[in-house]
């Protein structure tokens, strides 16, 4: 870990102005906001991130969860994962989000990790975390050691020849299925970005993971009101029963009427370079009978673009089973 300066922001504008001086808000940023620090400090200890300045945003008034007049929800950027997971409105209206949060990390980490921080959670690719290894995400142009290397846990969707790192967050997957909106305040003012546009594919710039620019501060996330009659669920598959990143996961929000799926929002985790919303699966489900056969077709559609690596071909079938089972559970009549 390199020595760094820690400042504590008491006001958002001041924090934004300070952070705007950085050359990048992506990999290698010289100035970073710190919330729970559960990703950032870890990477700083490994010298993967070496910011000169950290701006502590934990005292900014971004810690509220509140109902919106339209029936939706607003979630402050520094709301802790555990507070969000156990909030009564989240449990009642957005079960998928609560379940996703509680399936991640450990109780201790969830007590620290924040909503804004989780949106920016970094990959667990082992080569990214090891500064002696080539990694285009950490060091653009150095190559990708994971392609042809140890890649069992890495992505099969949204990959490029430069990067196959998985987005590790569970929360993001639920947020994608819930069509969350990310609210950002930056040097040029405020803007709102649908979660699907917030993370970017690696392409030939894998060091760039989101649309954030220097000084951009995530202030809060909003969720639309729950779709009437919908049920939601998060299913996570992994080697051990707890405290492990997903090999495959599925967030589903479905409405069934008269035996038919009338609305579906589907996102997959553990398989994509970003939280993987699947319009293909949603289309395959909408208007169809809620049967296993249909679910399987939706799963096939969701994985049709999968590009397995040397060790992770099994993820294609595992992700399909994960989605089919999630849909089965979410559409079961009580």
């Amino acid at each position, binding site marked *: 870990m390199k020595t760094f300066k820690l400042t504590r922001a008491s006001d958002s504008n001041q924090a934004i102005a300070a952070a705007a001086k950085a050359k990048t808000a992506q990999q290698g940023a010289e100035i970073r906001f710190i919330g729970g620090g559960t990703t950032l400090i870890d990477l700083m200890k490994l*010298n993967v991130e070496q910011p000169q300045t950290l701006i502590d945003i934990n005292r900014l008034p971004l810690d509220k969860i509140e109902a919106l007049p339209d029936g939706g929800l607003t979630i402050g950027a520094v709301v802790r994962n555990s507070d969000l997971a156990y909030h009564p409105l989240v449990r009642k209206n957005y079960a998928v989000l609560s379940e996703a949060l509680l399936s991640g990390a450990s109780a201790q980490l969830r007590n620290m990790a924040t909503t804004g921080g989780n949106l920016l959670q970094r990959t667990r690719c082992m080569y990214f975390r090891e500064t002696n290894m080539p990694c285009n995400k950490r060091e653009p142009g150095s190559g990708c050691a994971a392609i*042809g290397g140890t890649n069992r846990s890495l992505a099969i969707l949204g990959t490029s020849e430069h990067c196959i790192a998985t987005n590790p967050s569970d929360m993001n997957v639920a947020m994608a299925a819930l069509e969350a909106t990310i609210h950002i305040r930056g040097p040029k003012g405020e803007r709102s970005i649908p979660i699907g546009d917030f993370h970017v594919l690696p392409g030939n710039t894998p060091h760039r993971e989101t649309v954030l620019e220097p000084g951009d501060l995530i202030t809060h996330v909003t969720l639309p009101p729950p779709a009437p009659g919908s049920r939601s669920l998060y299913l996570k598959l992994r080697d*051990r029963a707890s405290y492990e990143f997903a090999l495959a996961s599925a967030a589903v929000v479905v409405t069934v009427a008269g035996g038919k799926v009338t609305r579906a929002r589907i996102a997959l985790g553990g398989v994509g370079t970003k939280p993987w919303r699947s319009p293909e699966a949603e289309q395959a489900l909408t208007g169809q009978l809620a049967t296993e056969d249909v679910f399987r077709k939706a799963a096939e559609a969701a994985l049709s673009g999968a590009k397995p690596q040397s060790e992770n071909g099994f993820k294609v079938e595992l992700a399909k089973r994960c989605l089919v089972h999630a849909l089965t559970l979410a559409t079961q009549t009580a």
Partner: protein
Amino acid sequence: MPESAQTSVIGKPQPRIDGPLKVSGLATYASDFHFPGMLYAVPVEATIANGKIQKLDTAAAEKMPGVRAILHRANIGKISRSIMGKGFDGICVERRPPFEDDVVRYYGQYVALAVADTFEAAKGAADVVRVTYDKNKPNVGTDLKADDDPDVVPTSYGPEKRLQSERGDPEAAFASAAVKLDQTYVTPAEHHNPIELQGATAMWDGDKLTIYEESQGIFNMRGVLAQMFGLPKENVRVITKFVGSGFGSKLWPWTHCPLAVAAARQLGKPVKLALSRKMMFQSVGHRARTQQRVRLGATAEGKLVSLQHDYVYHRSILDNYHENCGEATAFQYSVPNLRVKFGRAQRNIGTPSDMRGPGAVPGLYATESAMNELADQLKIDPVKLRILNEPKIDESLGIPFSSRHLVECFELGMEKFDWSKRTPEVGSMKRDGLILGWGMAGCAWIAARFPAEASVHLRDDGTTRVACGTQDIGTGTYTILAQLAAEKTGVPLNKVEVALGDTSLPEGPVSGGSMVTGSIIPAVYAAADNAIASLLTVATSTPGSPFEKNKPADLAFEGGRVFVKANGSAGGVPFADVLRRANLGFVTGSGKSEATFGEEKPKFSTHSFGCHFVEVSWQPAIARLRVSRVVSVIDAGRIINPLAGRNQIEGAVVMGIGMALLEHTSYDQESGAPINSNLADYIVAVNADVPKLEVHFVDFPDKELNELGARGIGEIGLAGIAAAITAATYHATGVRVRELPVRIEDLLTSSVLA
């Protein structure tokens, strides 16, 4: 009569006497010691696995604030090699001292050492030492073929015949057997991963060296350091008060230890060196990868006629660690024709070393799996197959077992598990919408004594002190020693002081091979007897003593009181009174027990035995397999502390769940790095993976080992469990996995549906 005299503390569940220190954070582990002026050292790790150091640029690191030195081959000073002496002395599995040459033979090998005023400064400096290498492609390949074939090979513990055991004509018997099985089983490299990281704090006082290190064998470490630094043994003191688990990784000294000592020598100050978790995957040993071919021949009824076990393991470039997979093969079953033979394959890896149940654990995974497959092939119950082949004597040595009650273990296990309800067809058992699989396996582990010495004090305040220079690696040795002393002296447990983990104490055994308890019993008992004899002499020779007119032979000692035998124990005098009347602070006695380990011509074959019965649940829809029930039955002689004993077996079963389903170290083929070198990417079983564990001990004291009949229990619980889990997995899923761990990708091929 005092209560202590009526109630034996042996065989009763006793909470750890060191528990309060541990849960309150007061237990001082090796890295908890701090000294004035102490410096911190952080090694620089090689980032290649095969090559040569071309240039070491330390200029930038040396200029950093707080940095005292960057040590390397040119300025570390002399560090000599250590060779194995008689017994457990001078053993280093990795024999090359650090910085001996410029060749790098494994990823993470130490190439320099940064020493600074703070840990942070040392780490910062280590990070900026620039090393350039002549780099060659490393060989960390996973397909193992023996790459040498001498009849005898040197190993870390002496020469070993590659043909380990042979009887009859195994080839011919196999060829003509009615039923044959020929399969190869693979176990991956695994890392010990004790939670306490390794490290050393070294300080010199003139030519005397003291080192705090979490060692499983302090006297061996003393011998190694004496050789490495050219000192008489008595000038070296090793202190290990507590160990946060070892699992074998702390048995022998690793290269960081002499580095700390050499840095302290060069800089004239105490130096602390603590490893990172990543270093724990590179340079403190691991369980070798093994590839084991097992051939079984049997009659149509299931009587074994031939058993061949040919295995290959990987080893490092320079060292000769022997992964003795054949440890239990030659005696576990009655079979007239048998051969056990091994080969080894060199890789650019840090040397493997002993890991909990070394050899026997991977070995029994293979042979017990083969027995399970044979039972399926024969369509007979796997327990019946084993009982049918139960030996009457150890057929490899032609001598009787001291005490073997494996059949009783099977019988109790079947009863507790309700094994008779098992239906053998794959996928035939169900509960709550899940498919169940039931499997079992047997196990064995060596039982023997290492040499041990102990002392016992009886003190004038009514307390006692027992001392033995062994270690407590978290298994409960403090409590065992207290129990033994309490039993002999009649002093209640809370008035027993236990001293261990210090080479200034009487020489105790290494905490390895599950042999501490069995080894220390005779030593402590003899020490207590000698202390009591001394007390009785004092009692008869002290003017004014009620026993002044007696001879020592007239007296007896029981429950902490001295009395005249003829008068019975009712009128005794507490020993503290006897000592006070004589104005003595204490009397003391020493005791010693001899080794049985390594005996040339043993009269008995001594081992612990046991079995595991396992249930897994299988959810095909999401390819989810979980262990849902385990019953373990262990024949380990007399159990001194059933509470700690059960805990040992439970811990081993948890590790076994990891071995069967989760654990493996991946070596990056390009760089040679153990790439999943952290506890998020190296997956061990967590609480949520562990169902209720049921542990039973069959109580057959083995008096050949010691007067209490106790054998060891640290390792036996991990033997066999993986084979039981893979058998249960097959029973549930129809997928036969012969390479550990069982993975989701294997299970996705199952055609068993809900």
